[in-house]
């Protein structure tokens, strides 16, 4: 082939050269992209559970933006599986975990890997997801193929799938108790709420619930603002907060955006006694990446804290740290993920079978587990978990002090104040558990 490369100074290239190169590069990249699931899915073993082994799937991002949070969940789920295997396994068989990394690709990666786990590996259950985006995207896969997903993260409600077990908090177990506490005397009788969150379904729905709840108390929020994922620079927002003068900031900011947010807040001299921040997405794992002096006195609402002083919790923390390092911490999603594995084990043993329908039938036998944070129950009606509410204040040692706690709260995925007429009962209506109420649109921000 004639060499058409230009002989002049480096950097000069004819248009034909450029187009040819670009075309080649483009086709290679496109082909690699299309073929990668097949090339990289490896030689996973085919049909379901072989004799002596039960396969389960672990679907968490181990790389990408969510790796920071989700890899801890994979770690604790592996730990739970090892414990169960050491104690004899489930139904006399050892559990074999198949780990898939969707690389924080919520829209394509997660459903693709979910499909692979359910259809190719034929796993009995999947422990996975973190962001509501990833969960929403794998939902059709689990519902169409009658799989079972154990979802361990607190979320915004407005969902009640028969193929998901929610071991994280529903809004009435985390968001609403937090707001109630703030409105009360112990929380400082706050009236002017500034809502600030990352722009996706969880903060949008959570804020919808908060706005409606406050409206029912005759209060209006001062502002409702959203920033994109990974947004770094909060200078303008802090200036806006100074202008609006709220008495509390309810933060649904996710991920590393939190670092600059708290830094800017501290730099502006807004301390926790002036305007406290109540976060629902900042736990012990996120505190590791924050400067203690910048988050001093701020609050977080969860259903578990590492600082809970019980022998069971101390034992759990010790096992986790011995396995993964002294600098590791436990937090609410980690405890919920641990809970999820044990809920599944207990249900399978009750059912005597790994089939999803039989396992769901076994939920009706009121599965209870002695979790590190205290005894919890699985609610067969909603397939959510009874959880306690804790309000924590940050300490200097990157842990939380518990300043308020409640007894077990029954989960309500559709709080009446925001979703009137909606309810969920899979026990009463095994085929169609969700009763629809009025259509609710999670509106885009009007500000």
């Amino acid at each position: 082939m004639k060499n058409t490369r230009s002989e002049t100074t480096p950097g000069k290239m004819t248009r034909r050269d450029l187009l040819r190169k670009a075309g080649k590069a483009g086709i290679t990249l496109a082909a690699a992209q299309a073929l990668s699931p097949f090339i990289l899915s490896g030689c996973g073993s085919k049909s379901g559970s072989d004799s002596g082994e039960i396969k389960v799937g672990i679907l968490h991002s181990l790389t990408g933006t969510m790796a920071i949070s989700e890899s801890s969940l994979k770690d604790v789920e592996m730990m739970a599986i090892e414990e169960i295997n050491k104690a004899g396994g489930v139904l006399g068989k050892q559990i074999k975990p198949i780990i898939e990394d969707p690389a924080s690709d919520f829209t394509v990666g997660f459903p693709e890997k979910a499909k692979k786990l359910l259809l190719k590996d034929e796993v009995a259950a999947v422990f996975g997801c973190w962001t509501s985006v990833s969960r929403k995207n794998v939902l059709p896969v689990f519902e169409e193929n009658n799989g079972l997903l154990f979802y361990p993260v607190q979320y915004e409600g407005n969902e009640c799938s028969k193929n998901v077990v929610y071991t994280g908090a529903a809004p009435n177990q985390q968001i609403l108790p937090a707001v109630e506490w703030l409105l009360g005397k112990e929380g400082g009788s706050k009236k002017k709420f500034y809502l600030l969150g990352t722009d996706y379904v969880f903060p949008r729905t959570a804020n919808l619930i908060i706005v409606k709840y406050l409206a029912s108390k005759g209060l209006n929020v001062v502002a409702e603002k959203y920033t994109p994922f990974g947004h770094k620079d909060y200078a303008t927002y802090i200036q806006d907060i100074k202008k609006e003068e709220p008495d509390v900031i309810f933060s649904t900011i996710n991920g590393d955006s939190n670092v600059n947010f708290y830094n800017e807040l501290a730099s502006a001299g807004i301390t926790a006694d002036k305007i406290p921040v109540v976060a629902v997405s900042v736990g012990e794992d996120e505190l590791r990446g924050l400067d203690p002096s910048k988050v001093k006195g701020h609050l977080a609402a969860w259903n578990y804290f590492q600082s809970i002083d019980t022998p069971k919790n101390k034992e759990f923390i010790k096992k986790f740290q011995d396995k993964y390092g002294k600098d590791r911490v436990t937090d609410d999603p980690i405890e919920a993920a641990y809970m999820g594995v044990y809920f599944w084990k207990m249900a399978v043993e009750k059912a005597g079978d790994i089939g999803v329908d039989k396992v769901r039938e076994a939920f009706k036998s009121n599965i209870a587990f002695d979790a590190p944070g205290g005894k919890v129950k699985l609610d067969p009606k909603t397939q959510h978990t009874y959880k306690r509410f804790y309000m924590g204040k940050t300490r200097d040692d990157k842990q939380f002090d518990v300043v308020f706690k409640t007894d077990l709260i029954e989960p309500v995925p559709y709080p009446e104040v925001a979703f009137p007429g909606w309810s969920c009962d899979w026990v009463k209506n095994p085929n169609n558990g969700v009763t629809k109420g009025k259509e609710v649109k999670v509106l885009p921000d009007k500000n």
Partner: protein
Amino acid sequence: MNALELSEILFNALSFSSILILTALGLAITFGVMRVINMAHGEMLMLGAYTAYVLENPQALPVMVRNFGKLFGAQWQTEFGFHLNLFVAIPTAFLFVGFVGYLLEVGLIRFLYGRPLDTLLATWGVSLIIQQIVLLFFEADLKALHLPEVVDGNWEVVGVAIPKLRMFVVAVAALCLFAVYLWFFRTNLGLQIRAVVQNRPMASALGISTRRVDSLTFAFASGLAGVAGCIFGHLFTAKYNMGPDYVVEAFMTVITGGMGSPFGSVASGLMIGTGESVVEKILVNATMSKMLVLLLVIAFILIRPSGIFAPKERSYD
């Protein structure tokens, strides 16, 4: 719009611009002057941030040693860790990342001159490798970087609370620009670089080692990226995948400013930073402001494709 808001806009503009300029300066030199598309530029920034982490956080070395040991299946432990501060980290980041850049140039880029798309692919591959190496050694969690007392807190100037750290970033950006000016116009090496850019064969014929010039320029640009990353690690955060967050902005700034001119990047950094500041103040909506500013940049490039300071082919300035 009252006086307070106006002053806030001005100071935000200064802060955002300085961040953009710092991010883009290294790339302006490699892309603008040497015409090398360095997709690993973001990772140079990230390495600078991690240098700061290793030097400032006593936990860093134990974590690194433990993960290094895991590679061989060993259980290495150490309690030793550095506990220095930001002002030591900055020059160290410059030297270390500069060295990494030097290795990159000598080992890979030098074979790919005149092949921009190949350089693009190759450096993108290198960026992935560097990311994974850092992930292996330091794990996926965010690294908190503490500020020395001097740059912590804020100043009250005409009623506006300006974080000292942001003013420090402006100062460092100005210093880096001054350093670049000195480097290009007042040193022998700078003279050689300008000669090589103007007419490579002639410069080579006159006895200038073009290979040495290329390596040192790339190293210097990487060093600048390291300094930027070191500071951004404090202003924002240090994580193994922070590179891609910055590389897009860097390219945008350099292209808008005009290739071949680091000072074009300064102008476009100022322009984009001010645009962002004004729009964000009026709208208080980060998504909308980013979108509008990007639309403005696109419109600008359409009108004036070669950027603010379009390069004239045969001269450097």
